[in-house]
C-alpha cells in the first residue's frame, strides 16, 4: 500500500480529506515506479489529470514537486523505482506545490 499526500488544492479538487492510499504494488510486482504511482493516482481521481503532469508530454508541471524519504524525486524519470519505505507505506510520497509566492 502506497500513501500519497496531496497539497491542499488537489485534496479539495479530488474531494479527499487526508492521505490517499493506493493499492500498489500490483499483484506479482515487487517494485513501483514514480510514473506508476502517479498513473494510479490519476486513475483513482481523474480530476487530477493534467494537474501534476502535462497532457500529451506527461512532463511534471513546473510548479509541482515530488518528495519521499527526505529526497527530492522531482527530476527523476517516470521509471524511477520508489524507495522501499514508500512501498511498505511507512513513508508517504509527497506531491508538493513549489514555494513560489502568491
Amino acid at each position, binding site marked *: 500500500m502506497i500513501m500519497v499526500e496531496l497539497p491542499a488544492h488537489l485534496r479539495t479538487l479530488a474531494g479527499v480529506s487526508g492521505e490517499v492510499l493506493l493499492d500498489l504494488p500490483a499483484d506479482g510486482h515487487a517494485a513501483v515506479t514514480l510514473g506508476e504511482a502517479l498513473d494510479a493516482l490519476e486513475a483513482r481521481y481523474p480530476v487530477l489529470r*493534467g*494537474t501534476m503532469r502535462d*497532457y500529451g508530454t506527461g512532463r511534471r508541471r513546473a510548479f509541482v514537486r515530488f518528495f519521499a524519504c527526505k529526497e527530492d524525486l522531482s527530476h527523476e524519470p517516470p521509471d524511477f523505482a520508489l524507495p522501499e519505505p514508500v512501498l511498505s507505506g511507512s513513508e508517504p510520497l509527497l506531491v508538493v506545490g513549489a514555494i513560489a509566492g502568491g
Partner: protein
Amino acid sequence: MTAVRVLVGTRKGAFVLTSDGKREKWDVTGPHFAGWEIYHVKGSPANPDRLYASQSTSWFGQQIQRSDDGGQTWQSAGNEFSYDGIPGTHQWYDGTPHPWEFARVWHLEPSLHDPDTVYAGVEDAGLFRSTNGGQSWKELSGLRNHDTGSQWQPGAGGMCLHTILLDPVHEGRMFAAISSAGAFRSDDAGESWRPVTKGLRSEFMPDPEAEIGHCVHRIAMHPARPDVLFMQKHWDVMRTDNAGETWHEISGDLPTDFGFPISVHAHEPDTDYVVPITSDSLHFPPDGRLRVYRSRTGGNLWEPLTAGLPQENCYVNVLRDAMDVDSVDECGIYFGTTGGRVYVSADAGDSWSAAVRDLPSVLSVEVQTLS
C-alpha cells in the same frame, strides 16, 4: 419578477451575487474554488442555470467547472486542451520564435442556442469548442493556423484569446480578439478566419497600420445590431459599422483612450461605456478618480459618470472581462476592480454603489438577467 445574478471571477475564487430587479440589496455566495484564479464565469443564454467557470493556477493548471443550478453546486468538466497537430511557434516579446504552449482559459462563451456547446479562448492564443457540456474540447485550429499565426506576439498579460463574440443574426459569424495579434472574423462557425483590422493604428508597431500585431483589449457588440462593434484597444477606442471591414476612431473627448473593458447598453445600441486608464505604463484611473465614461452618440462625445465612485486616491484597474450590463428595463451597468469591489449602477451609469467590497482582485464580471 426579474432577478439579476452577477458572476464574479477573482484571483482567489468565484463569487455569485444575486439581487431582485431593484438591484439595491445583494446576497453574496462564495468563494467557490477558493484559492484558485477564476478568469471567467459565464452562463448559457439558452439555459441560465448552466454556468461554466475557468479555474486555474500556475501550480496545478487548468480546470473547467460546470454548474446546472445557477452556481449552487459545481462539477469538474474536461480540462484537456491539446492544440491540433504540432502547434509550431509564435513570436516572443522580442520577436524571436517561441513555442505555442497552453497556459489557461481566459474566456468561456456559451452558445446562444445550445447549453452544451461552449467556446473557450485560451493562452497561448487558440480557440476551442466543446459540444458536450465541457467534457471534451477540440481546437478550432483554423484560427491559430492562419497564415499570420507565426507573427502573433503576447501582450503584457500573455498571448491570450480573450474575446469571443457570437453574431446572433448572421449564421456562422463570430469574432475573436487576441492580445497582441488583433481582431479576427469567421463566417463559417469558426472553421476559417481572417484578420479584421483595417483602420487600426498602433504606434508601438514597426508599421503602425500592419494587419497583425494590434493589442485589442476588448470588443463589444449589441445583439440587435451585430455589424456595429465597439473596441477598446491598447490605445484608442474604435468602432466598425461593417462587421470589422473597416474601423474608425471614436475616442473623441475622452481624457485618455487607454483602457480595458467596453460595454454596450442593453437597450440603446449607440450607448457605450469605457473606463479610461491613465496609460499603458500607469494602469490606474487618471488623477486617482474612478470614472466610467458613457457615450450616447456611439462614440466621440463622452460624459464622465462619477456619482458613487471614489474621486480621490483611487488607483485600481478594471480588467477587460470585468464589465457587463443587465437587460432590466432600466439597464444596469456592472464592473469589478482590481481592488476587489463590484460596482453596480441601476440607472444606466448615472449613479453607482458597491454591491460588494474587499473581494480578491476581480478578473471578470458577467451578468444574467433572470425572469
